[in-house]
C-alpha cells in the first residue's frame, strides 16, 4: 500500500508532531500580532473615513483601495524583498505580521467606517449639542454603539486573517503551512501533511466563525 494516505505516512506525521506544533504556535503568534496591527490601522483609518476632513478621507480611500485591490502575496513579497534594499532587515515573523496586518487593516477600516456610519446622525448631534467635542462624542457616544455593530464582521476578519497568515509559507515563515509544506516536500508525504494542517486551521477558525454567527444573531444584523 503506497497511496497518498498510506498508514505509514500518517505514522510518520504523528511521530513528527512537534514540527506541526511549532508551525501552529507560530501561526497563532503571528495572527495575534497581525490582528493587533490590523485593529490599530483599521480603527484609525476607519475613523478617517467618516471624517469631514477631506485629506483624512482621501487617505482612507487611497489606503483601502490600494490594499484591497492588490494581492496579499505581492504585498508580503514586496515587504520581504524590497525592505532589505532600503536597509531594513526584518525577521520573517515581523514581515508576516506587518504584511497581514496592513492587508486586514484595510478591511477592518471598512468595517469600522460602516459601523460608525450605521449609528444614526442624531446621536452625534445630541452629543455635540450638549457640549461634547467631536472626539469626546466619538469616544463616549458613537464608538460604543458602533462596536456592537462591528463585532460580527470583525470576528469574520479575524478568521480570514488567521487563514491568510499561510502566505508566510512563501517566504519561509515557519508558520503552520510552511512547516507542513517543508516537512512533506522532504519525504513527499503530502496527504497527511495537508489534511492535518487543514484540520488545525479548522480548529482555530471554526470556533471564531461560530462565535461571529452567534453575535450576528444577537445584534439582529
Amino acid at each position: 500500500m503506497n497511496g497518498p494516505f498510506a498508514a505509514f505516512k500518517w505514522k510518520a506525521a504523528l511521530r513528527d508532531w512537534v514540527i506541526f506544533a511549532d508551525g501552529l504556535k507560530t501561526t497563532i503568534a503571528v495572527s495575534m500580532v497581525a490582528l493587533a496591527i490590523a485593529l490599530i490601522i483599521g480603527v484609525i483609518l476607519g475613523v478617517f473615513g467618516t471624517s469631514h476632513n477631506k485629506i483624512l478621507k482621501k487617505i482612507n480611500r487611497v489606503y483601502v483601495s490600494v490594499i484591497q485591490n492588490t494581492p496579499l502575496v505581492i504585498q508580503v513579497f514586496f515587504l520581504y524583498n524590497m525592505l532589505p534594499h532600503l536597509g531594513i532587515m526584518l525577521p520573517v515573523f515581523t514581515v508576516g505580521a506587518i504584511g497581514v496586518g496592513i492587508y486586514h487593516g484595510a478591511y477592518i477600516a471598512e468595517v469600522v467606517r460602516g459601523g460608525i456610519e450605521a449609528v444614526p446622525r442624531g446621536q452625534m448631534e445630541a452629543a455635540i449639542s450638549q457640549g461634547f467635542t467631536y472626539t469626546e462624542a466619538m469616544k463616549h457616544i458613537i464608538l460604543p454603539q458602533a462596536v456592537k455593530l462591528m463585532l460580527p464582521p470583525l470576528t469574520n476578519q479575524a478568521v480570514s486573517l488567521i487563514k491568510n497568515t499561510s502566505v508566510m509559507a512563501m517566504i519561509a515563515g515557519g508558520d503552520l503551512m510552511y512547516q507542513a509544506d517543508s516537512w512533506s516536500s522532504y519525504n513527499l508525504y503530502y496527504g497527511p501533511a495537508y489534511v492535518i494542517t487543514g484540520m488545525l486551521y479548522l480548529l482555530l477558525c471554526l470556533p471564531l466563525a461560530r462565535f461571529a454567527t452567534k453575535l450576528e444573531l444577537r445584534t439582529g444584523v
Partner: protein
Amino acid sequence: MIRLEGVHKYYGNLHVLKGIDLTVASGEKLVIIGPSGSGKSTLIRSMNLLERPSEGKIIVDGIDITAPKAPITNVRQSVAMVFQQFNLYPHKTVLENVTLAPILVKKVPRKEAEESGMAFLERVGLKDKAFAYPSQLSGGQQQRVAIARALNMRPKIILFDEPTSALDPEMIQEVLDVMVSLANEGITMVVVTHEMGFARKVADRVIFVDGGEIIEEGPPEHFFKNPNHERTKMFLSRIMH
C-alpha cells in the same frame, strides 16, 4: 440672549435662510411656525451652530458663536436642545442619559449630577424609569427623558426642534404639559412646533417663517386672530383645520 444678524444659509444652490434678523430676549418664549421646508429647522439649529450660517452673525449670551475660534462647546453647555427624534443614547440607562454630559462635559461630581438628574426625572414623571433603557420607553416617555437631559445641563436656553412631531397623538399632551410647566419658570425657550394650542398658551411671540424669511411676527393673540400677510393666513387656515 440670542441675536441673529443677517443670517444666510446656502446648501449648494439652495438658499435656505435669506437674511434672518432676530432677537430673543432673556426669559422669552419664542415659537417658530412655518410650512415644512421653510427653513425653520435650519434656523433653530443655527442657534447652537449645528448648522453654521453661510453669512451673518449669531450672538448667544454675549458671545459671537460664528466668530472663528469661538468657544462653541462652552456656549453649547448653556444652550440645550430637544430633538424631534429624541436622540437619547440607546446604550445608556435613562439616568446615565441625563447625567452623562453634566459629569463629562461640565465636570459636575457624579453624586450631585445623579441627585439633580433624579429630581428632573421626577419632574417629568419618570423617576421610576431611571434604570430602564430608552428602547423600553414609549415615544412620549423618551421625549420627557430628553427634556430632563436638557434640564440637567442647567441651561439658560432650551431649543425645541419639533418636539412632538414624531409622537403618536395620544403622547403629545404629556410632552406639552412638561413644556408648559417649564415655560412658567422663566427659562428662555425657542420652540419650533405645529402645536398651535401650545403656541397660544405659552408664547410671548410667534414668528412665521416661509421661504427662508420671517414673514410675520407678533404676540399670539394678534398672530392667530388678525394675521397681516396672505401667506400667514393661508398657512394658519391649513393647519388649524
